[in-house]
């Protein structure tokens, strides 16, 4: 018997065929004694296996069997609690690390600024809230920025006028 026919016969036994396919197999079985015998064998084997169900039992006592399960459950619960605690610490760390790094950079910049001012190139507040100076010691040049709102307004007005033209 061909393999595909054997598989079809088995699928028929297992109720895996469509109504049309099952009908075709029935027709085939009516004419083929070998197929009928194979179906009987498969059916007997299945019946024997079904009778084998639920005969085995745990040899350990109820208390002993349960004690290991309980220990594992209690152990897992402790691990879960510990993991939750670690997770909370992790979250705090995730917030603290970048904040700490940013703070460190800020402090470093603040410490570095006054030193550069006295040694080499640097910016200095000229006393006026809107005036800044830049001094290059190598070339001995000094630049002063004067930033008055009135001029800015005027510049913008002039620019607007230009665009209008």
């Amino acid at each position: 018997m061909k393999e595909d026919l054997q598989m079809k016969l088995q699928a028929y036994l297992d109720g895996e065929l469509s109504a049309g396919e099952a009908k075709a197999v029935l027709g085939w079985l009516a004419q083929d004694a070998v197929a009928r015998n194979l179906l009987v064998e498969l059916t007997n084997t299945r019946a024997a296996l079904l009778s084998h169900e639920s005969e085995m039992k745990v040899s350990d006592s109820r208390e002993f069997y349960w004690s290991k399960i309980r220990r594992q459950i209690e152990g897992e619960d402790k691990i879960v609690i510990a993991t939750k605690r670690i997770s909370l610490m992790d979250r705090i760390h995730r917030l603290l690390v970048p904040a700490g790094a940013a703070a460190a950079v800020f402090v470093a910049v603040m410490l570095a600024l006054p030193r550069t001012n006295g040694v080499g190139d640097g910016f200095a507040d000229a006393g006026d809230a809107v005036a800044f100076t830049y001094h290059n010691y190598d070339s001995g040049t000094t630049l002063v920025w004067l930033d008055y709102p009135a001029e800015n307004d005027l510049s913008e007005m002039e620019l607007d006028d230009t665009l209008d033209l």
Partner: protein
Amino acid sequence: MADMDYTAAQDAELVQASRQGDMVAFEQLVARHRDKIYARAYMMMRNEEEAIDLSQEAWVKGWQRLVQFQGESSFTTWMTRIVINLCLDQLRKRKRQRAESIEAMEEESGGVERQMPVVMVNPTEQMERAELRVRIDEALGKLSEAHRTVLVLHEFEHMEYKNIAKTMKCSIGTVMSRLFYARRKMASLLQDLKTSE
């Protein structure tokens, strides 16, 4: 929970109580169904110690996943699925350790067994129940892990071909082939056991 009659309670009630952390209720469920869960593990692993360990691991997983149990199937069916999955994982692990693959295993279904003569007489007829159990147990032990697993999932778990294929991560064709081989081999083994008396 305190005034619950655990022995008389239905599985559903015990599951509900267990979900709320009642370990006494869960212990009652374990006591009721441990034999079935163990039997399934043993059938797949063929090793008593391993079956005990895996069945206990299944109960621990069951406790942890109780919230996932929707009650669509019975509690024992749900627990059986858990232990089967654990057994399959264990079998795959074992195969990997042997540098083999359960999927790549040579299909014995194409060999002699497919062509062997049909067993005409029911070899299990008129056997005592205990005797039949011993014989089937012996015969199951002679099957390969892959063939035994297909047989267990189909005959005892009543799973359809497509679900077995999904569980075992193989094609439906492979499932059919393995099942056919396993059945024929079982018939042959049971016949041999009978004639060798």
